[in-house]
């Protein structure tokens, strides 16, 4: 919790708030986080995305102060953070299971951090009220946390963290315990809350759809290392590695041999400026269309394939294709009458993105 005077001037958005410098973390023999560096800008919504075991929660806990880095440092606004205990850091956490204090009611829970920092009584009451307003839980002010639903508890946890006006809010998979509908709703709420409050959010999740929907930037973690840090659109359109391309959204991975400016994928070829080598390309299913559809993509690459399966999902359908050379591809097209047999397909060269392994 901040012991800095509340009048510290907020950074203009975009300025670096938190720096993770070459941090690594080992638990015994296990290297959970390999040396990584990351910057979080003031006011941004950054998501740590990854599978379980990728190290995203560990990184969060390092920033919160519940673990110490094995190597490296964490800095915030010119102050070194990793040597401070959690209760001295201007960072607050929303825990996965909310961790609301069962022996205190909702208001007392929210006021907890304010009491800990010796805020004057009248100010506490006012700020607790504001926090309750912000998460729309005013009528639950004296409620017993155990009697609240998951979504309500989560809002209380949010309020409890935000009332302390931290510079950075850490959220550890806060929506994973909610059912699907509630989850979608809370995603909207979280996003608008973050806009409203203007605090930087560091959000941890394994759900890539959630990450894409909420984030200003996504930091994709795999086995303790950062695969890519970019905006959702950037990561989707230009994934750096095959893993990223497959983890976020769906894709076709094409293996090709580049020779004299042409990438040969077996089923088709296209011009590609690169050294003679073997390469991997990511091609999103929605980039492939039927040759007979208009408009045609720019720089088209044509190929023929047989439709093996057609999976309907409302507005679009997914076609599983087998090319003349026996390669399997997936194409997502606008729904139409059921198709079968062999057809011509086309995609733009620009949609074939070269990725690392």
């Amino acid at each position, binding site marked *: 919790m901040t012991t800095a005077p509340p009048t510290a001037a907020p950074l203009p958005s975009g300025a670096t708030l938190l720096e993770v410098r070459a941090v690594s973390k080992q638990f015994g023999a296990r290297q959970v986080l390999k040396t990584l560096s990351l910057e979080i800008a003031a006011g941004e919504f950054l998501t740590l995305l990854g599978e379980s075991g990728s190290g995203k929660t560990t990184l969060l806990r390092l920033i919160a102060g519940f673990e110490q880095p094995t190597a490296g440092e964490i800095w915030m606004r010119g102050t070194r953070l990793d040597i401070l205990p959690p209760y001295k850091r201007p960072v607050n956490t929303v825990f996965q299971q909310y961790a609301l204090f*069962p*022996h205190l009611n909702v208001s007392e829970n929210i006021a907890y*951090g304010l009491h800990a920092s010796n805020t004057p009584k009248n100010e506490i009451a006012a700020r607790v009220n504001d926090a309750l307003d912000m998460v729309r839980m005013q009528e639950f002010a004296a409620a017993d*946390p155990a009697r609240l639903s998951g979504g309500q508890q989560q809002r209380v946890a949010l309020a409890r963290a935000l009332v302390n006006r931290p510079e950075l809010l850490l959220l550890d998979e806060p929506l994973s315990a909610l059912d699907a509908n509630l989850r979608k709703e809370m995603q909207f709420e979280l996003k608008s809350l973050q806009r409203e409050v203007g605090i930087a959010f560091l959000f941890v999740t394994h759900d890539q759809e959630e990450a894409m929907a909420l984030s200003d930037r996504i930091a994709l973690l795999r086995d303790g290392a950062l695969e890519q840090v970019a905006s959702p659109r950037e990561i989707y359109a230009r994934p750096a590695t095959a893993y990223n391309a497959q983890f976020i959204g769906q894709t076709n991975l094409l293996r090709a041999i580049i020779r004299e400016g042409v990438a040969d994928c077996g089923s088709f070829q296209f011009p590609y400026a690169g050294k003679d080598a073997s390469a991997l390309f990511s091609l999103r299913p929605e980039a492939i269309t039927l040759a007979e559809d208009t408009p045609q993509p720019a720089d088209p690459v044509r190929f023929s394939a047989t439709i093996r399966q057609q999976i309907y999902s409302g507005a679009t359908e997914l076609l599983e294709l087998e090319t003349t050379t026996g390669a399997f591809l997936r194409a997502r097209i606008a729904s139409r009458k059921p198709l079968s047999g062999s057809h011509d397909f086309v995609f733009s060269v620009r949609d074939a993105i070269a990725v690392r392994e």
Partner: protein
Amino acid sequence: MFAHSFWTVHDGLIIHHWNLSNYATLFQNPLYVQVLFRTVRMAAAVTILSVLLGYPLAYFLSFRAGPRKELLYQLVIVPLWISYLVRGYAWKTILGSDGVLNGFLQYLHITHGPVSALLYSPFAVVLMLTHIYTPFVFLPIYASLEHIPRPLIEASQDLGASPRQTFFRVILPLSIPGLLAGATFAFVLSLGDFLAPLLVGGPSGTMIANLVQSLFGAAYDWPLGAAISVFILIVTLALLAITQRIEMRWSKRWSLE
């Protein structure tokens, strides 16, 4: 037993004549009253000391002991299974005039002669009972401390509370049920204990249960003994009921999983 307490003794025979005279004796006889108060004081002392010893131990094991926690827990439990008599006897040998403690003190030249006041005194009884009941007090406190979800501690620190604040505002309140259970246990059992005074109490360390026991023995007044027993029973049950009520009210404000 209840019935017996209302009867009287007459010429060495038990007469089934219902009255409350036994209860009157209990409360009016100055000797009995004195012993009663002394017993209560001693039981209170045992309870307080056991808690002072047991709570920090439980806290240490639960929060600071790390991987050795399980082993240390077993070590605390083991003495519970050692015979009461054995432990009482041990204290007897330690505190006596030519006991181990005196020998030790003289060996170190801290004292130059046996200190006889150690044994056969209320002090010895309190000491022995504290020794017996500290593990009993430890158990429920440890259980309730272990029950506190660790994320709550992290949340408290995350919100800015120092470890000290976290203890007083989160850990202690949530450990009250265990604390209450352990303290009640120690108090109730100390109140009704008669063996310790017989072993190490001497005449000045008699407790109320000793009165009962002698009334059933040499002093032969079963009805009076029964009356006192009933009294002890009622006090015990009342205490249990009260602490249970407090415990329920306390944890009705919240529920831990």
